């Protein structure tokens, strides 16, 4: 079935099974590989994208449900790798292997858009769905506070 997805402000015409998870449409059909696959069951957060302002796990979101909505992926966070969250991530050298970090950054961007100066508790809640096997959690926490500062 031919559908149109609006990703990072651009329309992508793609021909897919409407039940296909949004993740695979983004990666295989739209060719945007920054969004990662980690578990396929909404448990790890590697596939996190922002749909109409909310962080969602694209691995269990049928592509049909995203039609007509604004989808943001890591590639759309900024043109020059200079969104406050990205700058904070670089300043505090958050990423290690980096594989989880697109998802971490998307969760953090969504959190800060809804709550510009989050408490540690809010951070715990918003980020609990994103696993980092490299254990960068302490740096992620510090970088979210730093990004909040940079946004002010």
């Amino acid at each position, binding site marked *: 079935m031919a559908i149109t997805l609006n990703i990072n402000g651009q329309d992508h015409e793609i021909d897919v099974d409407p039940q296909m998870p949004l993740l695979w449409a983004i990666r295989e059909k739209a060719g945007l*590989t920054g969004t*990662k696959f980690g578990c396929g069951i909404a448990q790890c957060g590697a596939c996190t994208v922002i749909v109409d302002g909310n962080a969602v796990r694209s691995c269990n979101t049928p592509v049909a449900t995203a039609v007509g909505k604004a989808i943001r992926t890591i590639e759309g966070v900024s043109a020059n*790798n200079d969104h406050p969250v990205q700058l904070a991530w670089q300043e505090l050298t958050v990423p*290690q*292997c980096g594989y989880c970090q697109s998802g971490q950054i998307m969760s953090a961007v969504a959190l800060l858009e809804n709550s510009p100066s989050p408490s540690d508790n809010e951070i715990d809640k918003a980020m609990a769905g994103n696993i980092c096997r490299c*254990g960068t959690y302490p740096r992620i*926490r510090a970088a979210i506070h730093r990004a909040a500062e940079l946004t002010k």
Partner: protein
Amino acid sequence: MNQHNLTRRNFLKISTSVAGGLMIGFNLPTTAEAAAGDATEINAWLTIDPDNIVSIVTPQTEMGQGAWTSIPMMVAEELDIPWESVRNVRADANRHVNNGDLYTTTSTGGSTTVSKRHPYMMQAGASARERLRVAASKRWNVPLDKVVAKQGILTAEHESSGKLQGTYGEFAADAAAVTLEAEPAIKAYGDWWLLGKEVKRLDVPAKTNGSAIYPIDVSVDGMVYAAVQACPVPEGKLVSYDFEAVKGMPGVIAAVELKQVKDIAAFTDLRSAVAIVAESWYQAKNALAVMPIVWDFGRGATISFDSQTAEALSLLATPGTLLKDEEGNIGKGMDKGVNHDAVPDLIASASKLVTGEVYSRPFEAHATMMPPCAVVDVKADRVDVWTFTQDIARSLSEVADQLGRDTKTVFLHQTYLGGGFGGGYNMDVHRQAAAISESIGRPVKVIRSREEDIAQDSQRPPVWGTYKAALGDDGLPIALVTHFVGEEKMPVFSQRGVANMPYLVPNRRHEYGAVKNHIPIGYHRAPGANSNGFIVEQMADELAQAGGWDPLDWRIKMTEGIEPWQRVLLAMKEKSGWTTDMGNGEGMGLAIVESHGTIAGCVANVSVSRRGQIYIDKLQYFINSGYVINPLGAHEQAESSAVWELGHAMFGGLQLREGRIVNTNFDSYTLMRMPDTPPVIEVNLEMSQDQWWGGLGEPTGPPTPPAVANAIFYATGTRIRTTPLSKAEL
């Protein structure tokens, strides 16, 4: 900056700079290898562009541990070039393999990139710098000792023409033609201008905008996707499958049987499996999930963790096999004469005997965030490979072996890795992709589902251990026997950190055994020490307690005269706020374990709620790793391995039932998440001042679980002898 992604443009840029600039080759064994008598031929190289940009080749893989920064740092230190002028470039695996291991080794693990490889990496920079000086001295016609090479600039004072100056880039072509009479010595500790400084990893920016390329992100023209399933009971074999049943499903192209070559799959052989190929990975996975498959489960079907535990307990009930002196480095500073024959009598006649209960740790998976994945394009005249590997040369050779091709025609392209932790060693995903691509005549991307990843991973092995000790009048042990049981595939892991524990017990005996096991086993961040430390360091606390000693004072006393350990223990005493008496459901615990030449102490503060919930309030680390070349990287790695191992200790643990791992995704194999992470993790490196090179990628893991378990004991009076700790009744 400094990112070369896998685009054609970048490949071309890299090749041009290799062809157009100065290429430095060098040829020296590492001191360690020369001393070990098996000196290998070593070659590595760097390029200098006319615009004074230096590209440094990185034969090791980057999994976030910083190899693509630390290798250039070591070379740049000697070359003396501003850090801003340094670029990292991937090593060419094909060139390495087909030129007598040009870079010595491409293996990436055991925390060795800096600790073991610095002599020849630093030599690359020193050699290049000297050849540039010689080139300048010739062109300027000034004596060599008047030529200074510093920060990318060559200068000399000349009697008639005054001050002469040029960039390295201007002399690169001349320098390439210079042959040195002798290789310069590399700089000693203390003479460094770059090593020892905080340097941000070069790979960070590409990892904040999605541009870093991992094997799973690679696409080639005409590529299709494959999902694979091996026998859920490892070592089992495929009997039949019914492709007709799923052939008509959308996108499905083919089914491919993957045939195991050897009888029992060795670590990197292709295992018996079946794959579905489709236009999309999602379609392949869906079809595979419903395709009827018949397996012959083999001997593993009757093995469970319970049956292995029962076997281990029966082995522990009688004396095990004696570990001989020559089989392991037994005891620090007491490699000889541990008197193992004297131990049984001393134990039998002990006036005060301490009998340990049985401790254990379960299987754990690597569960790298990127599930194993490979893209392979098999053509008539060449094969291209992108894969999850911690050793590009080994994986290249495995693909050549799988296809029966000459290694000269196999090209393996390095990408970033989405984690490694040892999981990138015993890996057959590129064999799978090679076999499938060959069979269907198209490039293919194999992605393991998370379930397939965890079910088929080369797991960290379980261990069961106990001990007995006779105490003297001063409460210190005079005789000790340990008995550790591992599994049969890599039984050596059950001894690491046990026989070579630092505690100076005058009479010691170390026994071992192994249970039947069909689950694949592999290296897992700080192998052996990770599980054994949990047992040894709770034993230390139990012995201290039985003898009336404070656990920290006991360790200080028992390592008397072993200076590197003393330094860590004394720092723990001075700085950690140590006490065993916090009260109020709170406790402090400590542990100290050596792995990869680095001694790491951990002090844990925990509180336990009335309902038995464990909170880790603070972790403090005290580390002696010898030299630290990048304190920022050291901090990152120390935090990382601490959280890694704390996750296994608190939540992890694979369950093995009827031969198969049953908790194969993150809903059931639970790991550390943000809310579980201790609010304070402090890393103290000041005691790392010794002149040796310890590894830093792993050592904070092993002391963490025993420090936490010891702290729980002081908080509650309950000793937890297995993990996950969060499941203990408190």
